[in-house]
């Protein structure tokens, strides 16, 4: 890990790896210990079930005095996540407290998947749909999850193929 990394970040990272939260994976980047690749499994009994959502999490210089920056990389149909993957979650903004950790932030995002909050939207069109016709919104979310999921599978198998080909010709 890079020198000068605060003890707190080291401890948090160690614990994330040693005791991962069920359904959540967070790994620091090899070259930047402040950058995490995160994946959250869509919780059961939600339209996101069956999906695996990739996020990126970055700890700014002021962390933990300032909140981590988190963004969905995977497309998701959710009233509190916009097209660019930005998340509307109070603890990432004005309700941030340094007593929160990467772990608690990711748990909160997992919980947000279980409990979309269309009254505090980021993606206005999605939120509108959620309010007007919740069933249809949920169907759309399921649909997106399926597509994304399949694309991921294809992507994973393609990259696997690519890797094995590379290995063969090296």
């Amino acid at each position, binding site marked *: 890990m890079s020198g000068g990394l605060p*003890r*707190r970040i080291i*401890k*948090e990272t160690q614990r994330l790896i040693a005791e991962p939260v069920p359904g959540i994976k967070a790994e620091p980047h090899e070259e930047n210990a402040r950058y995490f690749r995160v994946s959250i499994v869509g919780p059961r009994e939600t339209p996101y079930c069956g999906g695996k959502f990739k996020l990126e999490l970055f700890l700014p210089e002021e962390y*933990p*005095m300032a909140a981590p920056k988190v963004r969905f990389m995977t497309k998701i149909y959710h009233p509190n996540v916009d097209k660019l993957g930005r998340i509307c979650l109070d603890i990432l903004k*004005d*309700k941030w*407290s*340094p*007593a*929160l950790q990467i772990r608690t932030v990711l748990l909160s995002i997992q919980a947000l998947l279980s409990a979309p909050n269309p009254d505090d939207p980021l993606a206005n069109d999605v939120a509108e749909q959620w309010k007007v016709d919740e069933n249809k919104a949920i169907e759309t979310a399921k649909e997106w999850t399926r597509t994304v999921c399949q694309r991921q599978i294809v992507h994973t198998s393609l990259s696997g193929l690519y890797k094995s080909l590379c290995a063969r010709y090296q």
Partner: protein
Amino acid sequence: MTETAEEFLDGDGKNGQPKAKRLKAIEDVGMTSSDNDDKDTIYGALVVLGYNGSLPDGDQLLKRRHRSSYVLQKKGSPSGVQPFKLHLASSNTGMQIVNSEAHSVSYTLSRGNAVVVEYSRDPTTDMFQIGRSADSKIDFVVMDTVPGNKRSDASQDTQKSTISRYSCRIIVDRTPPHTARVFAAGFDKSSNIFLGEKAPKWQNEENMMDGLTTNGVLLMNPKGGPSCQPIIWREISVCGNVYGLRKTRSITEKGKTVEGESNVLLDGSLIDLCGAVLLWRSAEALKEMETLDTIDQMREGLNASRPQCPVGLTTLRFPSQSEQPCSSVSSNAQPYVYLKCGHVHGLHSWNSPDKNVADKRTCPMCLQASSYVPLSLGREPAFYQGDAGATHAFVPCGHVSSEETVKFWQQVPIPHGCDAFQAICPFCAQPLEGEDGFVKLIFSNDE
């Protein structure tokens, strides 16, 4: 002061940690009954409220007798006195007595008329004198207590002191059960007590003179006892009689006579000298109560549970008395608390941006705003109630103690000003604040 008591004080006066050795000494001696060598008999101890086991630096000259606590030990020869005879001050005998070595109390009446009560030696008692004076007649030198233990900066003006130079005396029976009684006023260098013209004084039913000192000596036992009601402060006269409080502290009209109560000190009795409050712990209680060692064990147990700062994720620890928190190594580990919620943290700089109230900080754990102060352990064993514990802290000073201890002291009214009372932290004498005057500590641990 007798040899034995002097030795006792000198013996532990070298390193500025009087309490540890003294209390150990009590245990080692194991004084159980009068069968022990007389000079080992301990009557009890007086501990000044507002000092956490030792005096702040300074006062080197007085260090030998000006301490935060004093153990009353049987004297080599009886030093008690008792009222003997009343004389007119103008009479020859009266004048002789005042000028002689004999103990006497002079009551100045109107226009220079005065009476002198001659005191005689009492072979059955020992007398201990307490006051601000540094002269040898005073066994236990007591200075005005500055709340918050911040004496070091203060060249405390003795002019401003409200404690009398010869404030009170305690007379203890030399035979078991060694009953101790408190009396107002002490005998001065020439063994006299002069009650000034402004001090209340009167002749009682037995034709004896009695009086109060100008600022008064008050007595109270928080738990009550066979000879006193709980929580109610009384005023004690020069002859040791019990009176209700005056309307305000130093007016000349004495309070009402109180029947059925006495000036006997019980374990836990508090003596208010108008500027300092003394806690009496009986010999039996001294044997039972916590010691510096048990409190230090508790401290180690607390540190062993590895409390964590939820922000820095650093391990916090309470320093021992010898490693005081000024060292920069330990400052990172110094525990701090938010006084409203009790969440314990290390020192950090975060504050909620939207709740920027002066002197207040937002707790990262619960987002409540309150002051944020360092915690320090209550180390004076005499102030603990029940077992040692570090679960609660006094507000606003952050002195850590057990639940029983904080709940006890927050309901003890300590005289304040002319006619008011307030609860204080016994470890630093700061008036308690907030609804309860204490907070339950919430530690975060390394999960």
